[in-house]
């Protein structure tokens, strides 16, 4: 197998003894859109800055297009970077901002003019070329930042939380525009985000990070359906997966909290061989259905709240001290009170202690 386009191996970085990245390996294929997803402080921005060369790694290597780049200063890396706050040069017009990288490469005037025009056309801002950044809206500023990064024809485009400073309406349209831009330019893109919906909708692959480690690196579908750990299951998806603890009794039966419970034969087949005192089921609405409280294999629960979302409603049911979320169609009649919750599909099953998904399941 040929090495990946961008390949990061054994990357570690600490700030004053506090590790930000513990040991990270990551590979990105050419033309791929990768999302680095994780809560704040997970090390995703550190990783991005290491790739851009704005930080020096304590250990590890980075190769880009077959070239080792971890010793190169940032200005020799040919990597486009779009900052969360855009970082436009306030004393330069839009055109000069976009031209900046080309001027640094001492590109002839005519060629640079053309590139600036192309880049601005790509973000649909030709008509604002003469404006100053302070005269632009947030969304326009971001597009200038994008055009500026693209104009140098980077080998890699890095986006640091590109949507977080935009309002909700703009965010949706920029999401689509970024995807289109990626498709049109064929650039390899690495985007940092803390918003799982952004990562799921935009990326070809997602690397989920927590506490300086990459927990799972796969397509959005695999990450959603076969999360590597309870953290991933709880972080990804709307609503996130709820963890339901299932205990193993001395007699070999199963229990929810203090009361015994008989899982469906399908689920029991998966649970039986696991030799643990307890496991956690990662339950999403897709795994659950409402039944009568006394239906076979149902878990007894109490409806706590109902969220009406138009086409559907989300029903929060307390089962064994844990809130589970079920999805019903918007017009379904549902009252409050005692109900049963059935598990209709085998959910991912996690080790209680390590949080890792047990290999035999999912």
């Amino acid at each position, binding site marked *: 197998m040929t090495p990946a386009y961008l390949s990061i191996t054994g990357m570690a970085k600490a700030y004053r003894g506090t590790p930000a990245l513990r040991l990270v390996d990551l590979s990105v294929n050419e033309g791929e859109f990768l999302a680095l997803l994780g809560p704040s402080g997970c090390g995703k921005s550190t990783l991005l800055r290491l790739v851009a060369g*704005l930080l020096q790694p304590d250990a590890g290597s980075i190769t880009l297009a077959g070239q080792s780049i971890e010793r190169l*200063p940032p*200005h020799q890396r040919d990597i*486009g970077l779009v900052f969360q*706050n855009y970082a436009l040069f306030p*004393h330069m017009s839009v055109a000069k901002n976009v031209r900046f990288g080309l001027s*640094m490469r001492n590109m002839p005037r005519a060629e640079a003019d053309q590139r600036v025009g192309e880049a601005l056309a790509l973000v649909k801002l030709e008509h604002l070329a003469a404006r100053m*950044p302070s005269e632009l809206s947030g969304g326009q500023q971001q597009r200038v930042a994008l055009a*500026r990064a693209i104009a*140098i024809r980077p080998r890699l485009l890095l986006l640091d939380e590109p949507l977080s400073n935009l309002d909700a309406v703009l965010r949706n349209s920029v999401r689509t525009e970024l995807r289109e831009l990626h498709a049109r330019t064929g650039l390899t893109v690495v985007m940092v985000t803390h918003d799982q919906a952004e990562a799921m909708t935009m990326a070809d692959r997602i690397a989920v990070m927590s506490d300086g480690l990459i927990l799972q690196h796969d397509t959005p579908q695999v990450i959603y359906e076969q999360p590597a750990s309870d953290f991933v299951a709880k972080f990804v998806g709307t609503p996130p997966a709820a963890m339901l603890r299932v205990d193993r009794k001395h007699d070999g039966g199963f229990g929810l909290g203090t009361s015994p419970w008989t899982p469906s034969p399908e689920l029991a087949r998966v649970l039986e061989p696991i030799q643990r005192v307890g496991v956690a089921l990662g339950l999403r609405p897709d795994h659950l259905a409402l039944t009568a409280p006394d239906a076979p294999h149902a878990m007894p629960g109490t409806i706590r709240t109902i969220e009406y979302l138009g086409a559907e409603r989300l029903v929060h049911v307390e089962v064994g001290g844990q809130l589970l979320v079920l999805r019903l169609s918007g017009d379904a009649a549902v009252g409050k009170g005692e109900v049963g919750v059935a598990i209709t599909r085998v959910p991912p099953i996690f080790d209680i202690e390590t949080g890792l998904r047990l290999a035999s399941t999912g």
Partner: protein
Amino acid sequence: MARKSTVLLLTPGLLLTGAVFLSPFVFLGLTSFWTQRPNSLLIDPAFTLVNYVRIATDSFFLGTLFRTILLGIVTVAICLLLGLPIARWIARRAVRTRGILVVLMVTPMVSGALVQTLGLVNLLSLLGVINGLLKQLGLIDWSIRFLGNEGGVLIGLVQAFLPLMVLPLITTLAKLPEDLEAAARSLGAPAWRVWVTIILPLAMPGILAGSILVFFASVTSFVTPQILGQGKVQTFGTVMYQQSALVNDWPFASALAMAMMLVLGVLLLAVRAVRRGLERRPVIGSAS
């Protein structure tokens, strides 16, 4: 009605200002057009331009004026070269550390020029700390003469007025988002081009403010050239002192002071024009 009461409220302040600042200034201006009677302590209050003609035609005074302004310009240049990296470093510290560093920097200024300058004499004299150290290290056999020349005065001026440059620079540089430099670097700018294309243009308000402060403090200084120049370096400050306190020619010293103020006033107006020009460009909005 409102106007009347405003004037009334301002009256005490206006009177005090007039008495304390304006009247000596007017008196200084008047004196400069008078003459000192020879061999007498009395002044001849007859209007004459004789003092100004003397300044404009005597190469000693013109040379002194020229040297003073040149010293001021060189002081500004050195303070800029030293101050920019220092200010950027301080501006990048956490707010708390920045506060401590600023206080440390300002403390010597509060202690007054005399104490600092005498300290420098200890450091720089022929048998001073620096010469002693260099001899101990075997780097020199004979003491280097730091004092009594323009170099020594320059060291003193830079030492005394560097904070005046660094303080406004810190204020402007701290306002620049750090990502601007990172953005420039990622777009292909090596460190020196980041300075030229990003930091210096955006720091211009601080550079102008600091330069004005240092220049004016330097050309009007007296203690530093007097002590470190050891009477061998004449600046406008030392010459004015000689004319007033030693020669006892107050009218001529007044004319020197007026000439100085005239030159500085013209310079200040020129700088203001430059600054207006800068402000007219829509620079001010930050990259928020």
